[in-house]
């Protein structure tokens, strides 16, 4: 009876992307306005399968450019990780460049990360290096699977398959809110199996920009989860591209 009801409910939903091509919708999602730049304070809380947890605090700078974006991520807590960080330069139609800086390491220089490291967890959480890159629409083949309500919002369910075989995920399935151009839920697959699921739990409009302020990644493979909480975010601060540099990555004070 319940399943019949579900089917009826789904039929009653408007076809949210019936007039839109999945590729065009995802292009809008990937290129939606997120401010010219942003600075956020974020808490990451990783909980292992056994229930033990670790908490990190980060400061994340982001700037949008004509054909790409730049992100600088620096840890502010715990104390022994303060200053460590990652710098990402994403440029359409070019390889993404990433550098890692560990404040505790003796080599006080930015270390280039191999493209093959993008599928590795960021400091032992369920977030991978690739997850902090921006996505270029043309790098994926999109398919509109169905329309479905997610958490009370009509959503288009879109599958993305990367053109490059070395992309860390074999495919992703996203529940996309076509009004706010946000991914409400994303399933990540590797080797035909569900690897992890991202769920946007809290969405706020801040300075005119729809912002996911609380989300959780549940790792189906390992049984762990990572909560990401945006404690503070400001848009359009007038950041300069030059600030996304090795100097900023290796800075002690920031």
């Amino acid at each position, binding site marked *: 009876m319940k399943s019949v009801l579900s089917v009826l409910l789904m039929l009653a939903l408007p076809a949210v992307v019936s007039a839109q091509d999945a590729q065009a919708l995802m292009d809008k999602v990937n290129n939606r306005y997120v401010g010219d730049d942003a600075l956020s304070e974020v808490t990451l809380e990783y909980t292992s399968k056994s229930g033990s947890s670790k908490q990190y605090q980060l400061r994340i700078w982001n700037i949008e450019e004509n054909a790409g974006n730049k992100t600088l991520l620096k840890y502010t807590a715990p104390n022994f990780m303060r200053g460590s960080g990652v710098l990402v330069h994403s440029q359409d139609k070019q*390889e993404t460049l990433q550098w890692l800086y560990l404040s505790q390491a*003796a*080599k*006080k220089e930015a270390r280039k*990360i191999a*493209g093959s490291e993008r599928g590795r*967890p960021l400091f032992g959480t369920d977030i991978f290096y690739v997850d902090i890159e921006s996505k270029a629409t043309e790098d994926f083949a999109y398919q509109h699977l169905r329309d479905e309500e997610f958490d009370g919002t009509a959503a288009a369910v879109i599958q993305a398959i990367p053109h490059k075989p070395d992309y860390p995920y074999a495919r992703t399935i996203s529940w996309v809110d076509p009004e706010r151009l946000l991914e409400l839920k994303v399933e990540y697959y590797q080797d035909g199996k569900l690897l992890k699921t991202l769920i946007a739990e809290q969405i706020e409009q801040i300075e005119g920009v729809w912002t996911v302020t609380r989300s959780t990644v549940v790792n189906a493979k390992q049984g*762990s989860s990572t909560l990401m909480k945006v404690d503070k975010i400001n848009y359009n601060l007038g950041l300069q591209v030059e600030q996304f*540099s090795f100097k900023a990555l290796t800075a002690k004070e920031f």
Partner: protein
Amino acid sequence: MRKGLLALLLSTPLLANAGWNHTGTVNLRMDARKAGESALLSRVAVETSSELAERLTLQVEVEGNGETSVEGASAELRTLLLDWQVHDAVHLFAGWQQQVWGRADEVNPLDFAFAEDTRWYYLEPRAQRKLSRLSAGTRIEWGDSSLALFYFPESSRNRLADDDSIWCERACEFADPDFQRDQFAALGFVVHTSKASAPRHEWAGRFTSRVGGLDFGAAAYYGTDHRQRVERTFVTSGVVALETKEYQSLSYGLDAAYALGDVVARAELARYQDVKLYIDPELPRYLADDDGLTETDATAAILSLDYTAPGDIYLNVQYQDVWLGEPENEVILPRELNLATFQIAKTFYEPEVKIEWTTLYDIGKEGGFSKLEARWQMDMQWLLSVGCLAFDGEDSAEDYGAFRKNNSVYLATQYQF
């Protein structure tokens, strides 16, 4: 020890007045060796920094070491550095610090400006083994570029293991004037030993930058070779005079890193001018030359490749070649030295365990060293490691075969705060 106490004394009154940011590690390690002995090695390191005034920062790092078999306990100052940011891009600094240069892992031809502590050669990552030295200079940073210039008012040299230590092999003994004195005395010589005053005023520079996907850098150093030499200054029938000397020379080089798809290639190329080498660290042959030393230029290059395979498996291979130039005397040394390293690591996340295998093989000496280690990150602060070290090669393969008796298993823990 003296510098460690100095740091503590200096930092104590300041701690009360400034907002200090402390971090540190406590390490404890138990080794059980093939030779039947076991040893407990401990290290406590505390690093702290504070902004004393606007744009004026003081960094202090003090380390205490203890080893139960030979070396005993010691404390040392690793960093006591004042940094004054005189402009957005320009810093002036003065004090004790240590740095590691170069882009390859563990084997860095470009890392010539700061000496090393060789007492626990294979037990610690190279970065942990660096020794601090007094310097003053400037660091200019703009965008992805950085230029650092150093003035060193005094020379520095590597810290050798004690003669009785399991980590002191033939070359280590031979660098010790007391060892040579005893050897000559055993041959019936009357031996006079002295120490030349160490040279002063040394210089170094390090530049790093980026163009597109190419990260690159350059470094130069005019100063002492950190391996002090014992020179035979006078020999006559039955009498020998030995003088411990430090030699200054020029070293310079380039390094670069580039991502080739999923692989990152790192490379270093370094040139060392007027390097002093022992003719041969064997006394009968050593006696054949005027002073036991010869001088030559040397060039070293290393290529390093990183790749992460699916399943979170990290691979690194490196190959280093060192060529000696034309020595001024006939030299009983190989003219080319080749070294290969290989590392594979697999990380598991539930629980968070990393298993790592590292091999270093000296192709010329036909000797090598391998380490297998499992590290369990128990929580954010506690790390538990278990591993084994294995050396291979002939006894004459210094650094490798000569250490076969040190094959060991170990258990270690680290607490980070």
